[in-house]
């Protein structure tokens, strides 16, 4: 079952006309920023094609594709049959024919029927054809929790894709990045799994809409230090960047200085940027919504420990979901990494 998660006000904002301020920046929600990024890609390249369930007339259950079918036609913004393996499998075929399909998976929990096509086919095609074919397919997945949803609507399966060679896995944390990164993802000749933090869809930020349709993977694989600090490095991506920044604010009030890194890309991992930071701070906490057990945090911890062994004052600590299924909505805030849990981990790292 699916919820169309539009908060009335948020939806209105997302649909509001974008108008740039004097500084050339426009204030947008992340949903609207992605919408405009998709629009730019559709306008720039006739081979770009959106496909998914309910993305046409409805504009997607989150309204991320709102208005695009009206503007570009239902031939370019295609409502598909209800079958995720079919969506990804036919997107592969379309890419072989020269198209650049952008698939929407309605919710994180519904990507699994397409898992075979993604891991055994999409990820390996460039390799097995020895570079003769590229598959520029983007798979957009609204992911993560915090929206009070029913089962299967709040999952964070990113590590499953990061473990699979041949896929790029990215997640924007701000409207500005969302606008640029979706265009870079579409321009990339590699398949990209594009995780959209659905719990942040309606948060606003400033976006430079003047940036043109991207050239292949400009900065799609670079992490960014989003806040400078000295006492510990907090590594996050997607929905938890916001949490990390709030934790840094709270820590600052207590006289502790946290550096916050937005990974942006999970595969590849920009370990250089993280290691450079950890060598300065000596402590590292990784925060993601996915279960900690066998999650992306393990890779980051292992890699950073290798790179910064003599700089680390404490083990890299991880804050994330528990080793349980995603819980019922009423308990999700106990499950999701909170500002408090991040700060507790920082405390433990500092006091180790």
């Amino acid at each position, binding site marked *: 079952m699916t919820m169309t998660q539009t908060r009335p006000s948020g939806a209105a904002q997302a649909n509001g006309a974008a108008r740039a301020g004097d500084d050339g920046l426009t204030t947008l929600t992340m949903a609207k920023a992605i919408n405009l990024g998709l629009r730019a890609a559709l306008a720039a390249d006739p081979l770009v094609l959106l496909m998914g369930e*309910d993305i046409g007339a409805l504009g997607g259950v989150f309204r991320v594709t709102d208005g695009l079918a009206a503007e570009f036609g239902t031939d370019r913004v295609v409502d598909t049959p209800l079958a995720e393996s079919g969506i990804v499998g036919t997107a592969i075929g379309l890419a072989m024919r020269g198209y650049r399909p952008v698939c929407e998976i309605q919710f994180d929990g519904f990507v699994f029927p397409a898992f075979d096509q993604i891991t055994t086919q999409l990820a390996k095609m460039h390799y097995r054809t020895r570079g003769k074919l590229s598959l520029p397919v983007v798979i957009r997945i609204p992911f993560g929790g915090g929206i009070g949803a029913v089962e299967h609507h709040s999952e964070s399966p990113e590590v499953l894709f990061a473990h699979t060679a041949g896929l790029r896995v990215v997640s924007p944390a701000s409207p500005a990045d969302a606008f640029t990164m979706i265009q870079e993802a579409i321009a990339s000749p590699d398949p990209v799994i594009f995780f959209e933090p659905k719990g942040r869809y309606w948060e606003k930020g400033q976006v430079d809409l003047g940036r043109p349709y991207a050239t292949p993977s400009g900065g799609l694989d670079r992490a960014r230090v989003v806040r400078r600090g000295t006492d510990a490095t907090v590594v996050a991506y997607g929905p938890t960047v916001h949490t990390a920044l709030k934790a840094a604010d709270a820590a600052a009030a207590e006289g502790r200085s946290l550096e916050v890194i937005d990974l942006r890309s999970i595969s590849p991992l920009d370990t250089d940027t993280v290691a450079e930071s950890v060598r300065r701070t000596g402590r590292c906490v990784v925060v993601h919504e996915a279960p900690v057990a066998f999650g992306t945090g393990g890779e980051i911890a292992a890699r950073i420990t290798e790179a910064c062994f003599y700089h680390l004052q404490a083990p890299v600590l991880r804050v994330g979901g528990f080793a349980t299924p995603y819980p019922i909505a009423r308990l999700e805030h106990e499950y999701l990494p909170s500002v408090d849990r991040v700060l507790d981990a920082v405390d433990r790292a500092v006091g180790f």
Partner: protein
Amino acid sequence: MVETPPPVQLLAPDGVRVAHPTYDDAVARLTPDHLRAMYGDMVLARRFDTEATALQRQGELALFAPALGQEAAQIGSAHALAPQDMVFPSYREHGVLHTRGIDPLDVLSLFRGIDYGAWDPRASGVHLYTLVIGSHTLHATGYAMGVARDGAVGTGDPARDTAVIAYFGDGATSQGDTNESLVFAAVNDAPIVFFCQNNGWAISEPTSKQSRVPLADRGLGFGIPTVRVDGNDVLACWAVTREALNRARSGGGPTFVEAVTYRMGAHTTSDDPTRYRTSEEEESWRRRDPIDRLRAYLEATGELPEAYLASVEAEAEALGARLRQGVRAMAAPDPASMFDHVYATSHAGVARERQEYLASTATGSDR
């Protein structure tokens, strides 16, 4: 190409009884009491929908998926079930659950976000709702294979012979799993009825986005006998399902039923159907309302006395009151219960995290 016969109809939209050679005998055996029971169940199912929708609007439920308009398909098919039969619903079969005696508050626990639907699948003979489209059709098929293995088909003992019914929508017919379930059911002669409620829409997509031909044809492609039935005709749904269940119970294998109906409401309370369909279409289906139809028939045959109508109305009122009160009174779940039942036996990973969690909440954060 396949010549799809028209949907089986036993009551015209105006409630006039239509003769049908295959099903007339069965219908003749339906007593007025039984017909009234179906009527009452449809009314109660609709009241459940109305109340739950209202509770969602009031913020008491996070979400609700109404079954408005699908009462005949659900109540008719469910009335054909034997106690030992097993139901695998999708997520909109509130009418079926009502008929099976499941506490409607259990259903709402799911939509309130405090449980996964709390009923006992074994005790109730109804599996929990499945939200991943199509997945449960395979569970139903496997269960039916188990029924056959147990020798619980074809014994001739009506208290023993068992069938399984799987409910799913028009959209679900596109999923690989649904088609694989037809493969497994066919080669195993599994005692199962695939009951497809074609309600015209999969969220915003009309059925034409899933198939160019009637969905009833699908079963035939797998060698499974198929019936197309008017899904707003409770008599036809009952008769057709009964026949299919009987076939299953007697060892005759699977049947595919397409019940042609309409989702009169939104997909869920979060949905906005005005974005993708016309009010004319909605209006035209409102004129084929399944409850009105049976009511007209019963009124015409003089089988709907005032006293009965009043008692149904009272029952509906009581249901409404119970829902409004019950939902508000639902206890908040214990956070530590999040760690329960991940495994049936102890698991070191869960145990450690539970312990850490309890320790952190016990000491309390200093923030």
